[in-house]
């Protein structure tokens, strides 16, 4: 069989979404950032909102997210994405503004912006990649780093007396009246990817219906920062990260489903 016999529209079973650019992603192989990018892009394509989507990229490994999403984008200062998104969405109520942020960006330096945007119930979508570490800067402790976990700034393991407790920012945000959807997902298996995609779809649908803030956490690996091969990192994630950050919906349609 020749190539032209196979490459026919009726044989097409999978096509990369056009909401992603052709740029080669710089993420480490096996990192959850890449998969999550693809899911977001697919949702935007399926909803037909590419022309309305505005991405606010963070500072972190996904600082270059704007090179991968074929949507108009802005790069925020470290932690400030929700503030940018607040203004963008208020000035363009029919657009689909979303932020894409890591745990350092969202839950350390940007905690104030995150909490206040959620508390005001800004009609934005926040995608939160929780890998329990600062991937970008070389693996230092994040607010979400687990107790006992070794990082560049906790070389003997995170110690509660010294560094405090891991911050469950997602549970905290669910308490705020402004959040309409708060859910925690992952992208380490095909089934998990499907669930995450559904959650992200729901988030953008909520935004279309002007429901307030939709917050989707994706618990992800950082194989480089954790100093593990990617498959091992996923196993470690299931065993350890999921124990502290259990997968599932926390708030749906403005109602807490877990306390």
């Amino acid at each position, binding site marked *: 069989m020749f190539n032209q016999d196979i490459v026919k529209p009726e044989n097409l079973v999978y096509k990369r979404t056009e909401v992603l650019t052709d740029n080669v992603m710089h993420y*480490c192989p096996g990192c959850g950032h890449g998969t999550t990018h693809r899911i977001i892009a697919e949702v935007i394509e399926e909803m037909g909102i590419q022309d309305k989507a505005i991405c606010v990229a963070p500072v972190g*490994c996904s600082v270059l997210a704007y090179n991968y999403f074929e949507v108009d984008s802005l790069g925020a200062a470290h932690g400030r994405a929700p503030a940018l998104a607040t203004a963008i969405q208020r000035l363009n109520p029919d657009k689909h503004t979303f932020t894409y942020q890591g745990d350092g960006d969202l839950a350390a330096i940007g905690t104030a912006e995150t909490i206040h945007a959620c508390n005001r119930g800004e009609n934005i979508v926040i995608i939160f990649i929780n890998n329990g570490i600062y991937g*970008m800067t070389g693996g230092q402790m994040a607010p979400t780093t687990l107790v006992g976990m070794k990082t560049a700034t906790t070389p003997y393991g995170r110690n509660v007396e010294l560094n405090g407790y891991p911050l469950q920012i997602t549970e905290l945000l669910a308490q705020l009246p402004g959040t309409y959807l708060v859910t925690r997902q992952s992208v380490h298996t095909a089934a998990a990817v499907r669930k995450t995609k559904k959650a992200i779809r729901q988030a953008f649908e909520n935004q279309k219906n002007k429901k307030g803030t939709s917050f989707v956490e994706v618990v992800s690996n950082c194989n480089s920062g954790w100093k593990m091969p990617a498959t091992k990192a996923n196993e470690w994630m299931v065993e350890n990260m999921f124990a502290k950050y259990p997968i599932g919906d926390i708030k749906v349609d403005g109602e807490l489903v877990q306390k």
Partner: protein
Amino acid sequence: MTEEIIIAGFGGQGVLSMGKILAYSGAMQDKEVSWMPSYGPEMRGGTANVSVIISDERISSPIISQFDTAIILNQQSLDKFESSVKPGGVLLYDPNGITNPPKRTDINIYKIAATEKAADLGLAKVFNMIVLGGFLKVKPVVTEEFIEKGLMKSLPERHHGMIPENLKAVQTGKELVQAVHTL
């Protein structure tokens, strides 16, 4: 004496630590030294390089763009640094993975099949010490005695048991290095 060196290859080939051992050894031999790495996330799995200066005098700039010696461990680094060797200088490279060997005729070129040798001997861990041995054969800027002292100072104590193996690798490198083109 001032020797300005660039060591370049893939991250994970021990480029930075080879430079560190060289710098420590120079320091132990009472020389002035500097070690300046390329840094940042671009190093993730990509290329890594470090410039090392060993000198009898105060070192002015630790940031240099022309080298007395270039120690090259992959093609990308060869492409990048071949032209930066000073005329009359030395280029030492490992031929593994090199499809486009160096072409300059105004410098001394040596090769050392260290990747192959390390694989043969099952000594992947001390690959960089084999290369270092090759360099020291060509340019004896520090003596063996101080390489040992440099290793003692740069390795954490729990790794001191590995020093004899490292020194043997240096020896292997000295025997392995071959002249390709000398002036």
